[in-house]
């Protein structure tokens, strides 16, 4: 590797990060607007216009940026930035718009799992550092929620990787390998059921990852006044608002990459620019559907859980459910071999 290559890679990182940051922030806010509009319609309200989140950000930027006297200023101001920065960096490793990830061989699923922790961690530390009792309570709830959902989430990620490794795929933790071998294509009947269970669990994990109802007890406006965001205002709050938007895109793209890595262009036999256009549109539609089912529908349909109920929900029913999924997938190959079964998609003649 010579100097030229290094500088090329460096330019790619710099330009890529800028482009992905703008992409993430823009679509994060757009999807936020769509989500608000849809949930308003579901509740029989008119709801704000779709560009409302952009206006909200502008509004927050004009507001005063209060640093409370009990806060530790440098941590209090740094936490929102760290959250946004870490979330943007996840986009580097995710396949977006039907393309390969920007850096396919430089980061894998476990890295994404860890980077997803950082925005929540930044909120927790920001909440703790504001020195307000409400914020502290919210922050410790967020941390407890994080431990809670990380158990089923780890099961899902490891199960997918394990199944691919049984298939003889190399670099099973790379999202590009997962995209190249969609799990549905290799699953037999039992495994198919297992993956449906895992998808279901992942859909229920998403609202907690994004602090949405019913798992928003860390923020719980009605009881602890916004929880860990209580003391935040102005541009610091705007940073958290943007983080939330980008994280929604990241989480939805992750689900798309793990479970729906299909593209439309091969179906129509398209190439070059038309193919890109179709794939990007299809990707945006997939992300929209994921957000619709895992965020909008759930948050409109149910009420908020208490924090001990959240921990119980994730550690007992959902963990057991995902373990059932894991066992189904582990037995899948044996059963397929013993009864001479084909993967479900081959039986249906789709692949």
């Amino acid at each position, binding site marked *: 590797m010579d100097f030229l290559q290094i500088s090329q890679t460096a330019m790619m990182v710099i330009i890529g990060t800028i482009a992905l940051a703008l992409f993430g922030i823009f679509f994060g806010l757009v999807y936020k607007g769509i989500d608000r509009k849809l949930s308003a319609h579901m509740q029989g309200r008119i709801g704000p216009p779709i560009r409302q989140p952009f206006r909200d950000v502008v509004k927050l930027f004009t507001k005063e940026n209060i640093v409370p006297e*009990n806060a530790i200023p440098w941590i209090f101001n740094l936490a929102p930035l760290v959250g946004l920065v870490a979330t943007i960096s996840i986009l580097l490793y995710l396949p977006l718009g039907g393309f390969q990830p920007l850096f396919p061989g430089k980061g894998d699923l476990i890295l994404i799992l860890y980077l997803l*922790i950082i925005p929540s*961690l930044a909120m927790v*530390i920001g909440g703790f550092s504001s020195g307000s009792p409400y914020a502290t309570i919210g922050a*410790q709830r967020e941390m407890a929620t994080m431990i809670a959902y990380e*158990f089923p989430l780890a099961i899902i990620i490891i199960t997918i990787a394990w199944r691919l*490794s049984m298939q003889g795929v190399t670099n099973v933790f790379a999202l590009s390998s997962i995209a190249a071998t969609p799990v549905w294509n290799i699953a037999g009947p039992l495994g198919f059921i297992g993956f449906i269970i895992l998808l279901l669990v992942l859909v229920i994990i998403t609202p907690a990852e994004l602090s949405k109802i019913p798992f928003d007890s860390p923020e719980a406006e009605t009881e602890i006044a916004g929880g860990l965001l209580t003391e935040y205002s102005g541009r610091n709050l705007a940073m958290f608002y943007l983080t939330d938007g980008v994280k929604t895109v990241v989480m939805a793209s992750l689900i798309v990459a793990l479970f729906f890595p299909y593209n439309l262009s091969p179906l129509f036999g398209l190439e070059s620019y038309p193919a890109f256009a179709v794939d990007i549109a299809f990707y945006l539609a997939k992300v929209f559907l994921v957000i619709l089912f895992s965020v909008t529908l759930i948050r409109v349909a149910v009420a908020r859980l208490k924090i001990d109920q959240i921990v119980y929900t994730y550690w007992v029913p959902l963990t057991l459910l995902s373990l059932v999924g*894991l066992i189904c997938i582990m037995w899948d190959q044996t059963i397929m071999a013993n009864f001479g079964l084909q993967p479900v998609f081959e039986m249906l003649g789709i692949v």
Partner: protein
Amino acid sequence: MNVADLIALLLQHSPALIVAVPLLGAFITPLISRLNDKVRNVFVILTLGLTASLVFLLASDVFTGNIHTYIFGSQDLALPVVRILFEVDAMSAFMAIISVILSLVAVIYSWSFMKENTGLDKYYTLILLMTAGMLGMELTGDLFNFFVFLEITSISSAALVAFWTNKAKSVEAGFKYIVISTIGALFILFSIALFYGQYNALNMAMIASAIQYTFLDKIALVLLIAALAMKAGVVPMHMWLPDAYGKAPSSVTLILVGATQASLYGVFRVCFTIYGGAINLTPISVGWILVILGIITMLLGVAMAIIQTDFKRLIAFGAVAEIGYILLGIGTGLVVMLNPEMTATGLAAMKGGIFHIMNDALDVGLLFLVAGAIYYATKETSLNKLGGLARNMKYTTVFFIIGLLAISGMPPMNGFASKLLIYESTYQLNPILSIIAILSSIMLLAVFVKVFHAAFLGPALPKFENVKEVPKSMLIAMGTIATIIIIFGLFPELIINNIVEPAANALVNYGDYIREVIPSFAGGV
């Protein structure tokens, strides 16, 4: 004589010198102490600095693939027992690097941390003795000699744990430590007797080449694993560890981490080298025992850490959990050692486990030093009484954040690299292993975020208004470890290739270790 010859000579005698320098230094320290306190501190730091450079010199040669032996006593190998043999392979050198770094940082830290105490001549003597003991355990090739060094380490660390004799709890912790160590050491001695009775040998390589895996050998294996695992703080025999770690002065705790890992090294040396030839004779793999112990250690360690309210006790439980990762990684390597299809997995797991030994020592060590700094500044260890210290102690806060991220394995710290290796290899043995490892890691994050809140964040408390940043020597000590953590985190591939992989290969290719003493040995290829 030119410099190259001198270095070659030093290299040749370094296995002996590495133990002899701190040992002699220990006995000179009380004399120098009579002169002046500062002179003594400088002398101790120089002694350990010299030891460290010898270790690095030896390690740089050993990592290229050479195994060094050093014979005390009869050079005639036909005579069975009349010698003590030091044998240094890459694993020994790797462990020696960790021990010597920890000791060196601890004495630098002690300069200010222990300044107000009396009896420091004894303190430094014991620290040097303990370092000599640890290094001896790691470099020796003789089982009885291993026991002797284990006892030296135990006795000096028990005295150091109880160093603050004006505190009843420190003395109690020291007492518990010596009881537990003695019980463990007795069983180790018993198993050495079992070997000697059967094979008429005390040398590890000789025993390993002759081992038949008889009934007595099985009993010896059980005793050795149980006793050494207890000394390493493996659940459920970990209970002495939070007591000892929690009540010892922080600088001592740092070296205790090294002593614990020296015992852990004993477990691996026994399983891989001594029983290496017998491993294909067992239908139930010893590796699975290590893996299961590792999983229990991990889960129970973090669960207990979450409910602790004492700063150092909490870190101690975190340290217990970290031991679990090491056992999981290396145990997985042992399970799949004979399975040719999974060689790559096994090697990756071993590399992860061995890298994690280093990372565990650095991360846990840094956190203990931070806890010590807070104790130094506030005279308080209960998390319920601390708060708001990030205003007064900025550097310490930054070091704590680095330690927090490293121990919970967040990128880009060193803990992430080793944990990544462990997750991405153990899942092939069984997916549940990786899942539990990831979960424990997140819980560790939660544990230390709680500490961050309790000690550093929150409103400025009036009682800590006059608290100041700790003196420079303590900052230098913490800064050194923090720098190593970040460097290891940013260049993991470099570290793995140059020092971790040779160590992993040294454990896996146990035949080379034996052949260095018994050239006719044919197994273990």
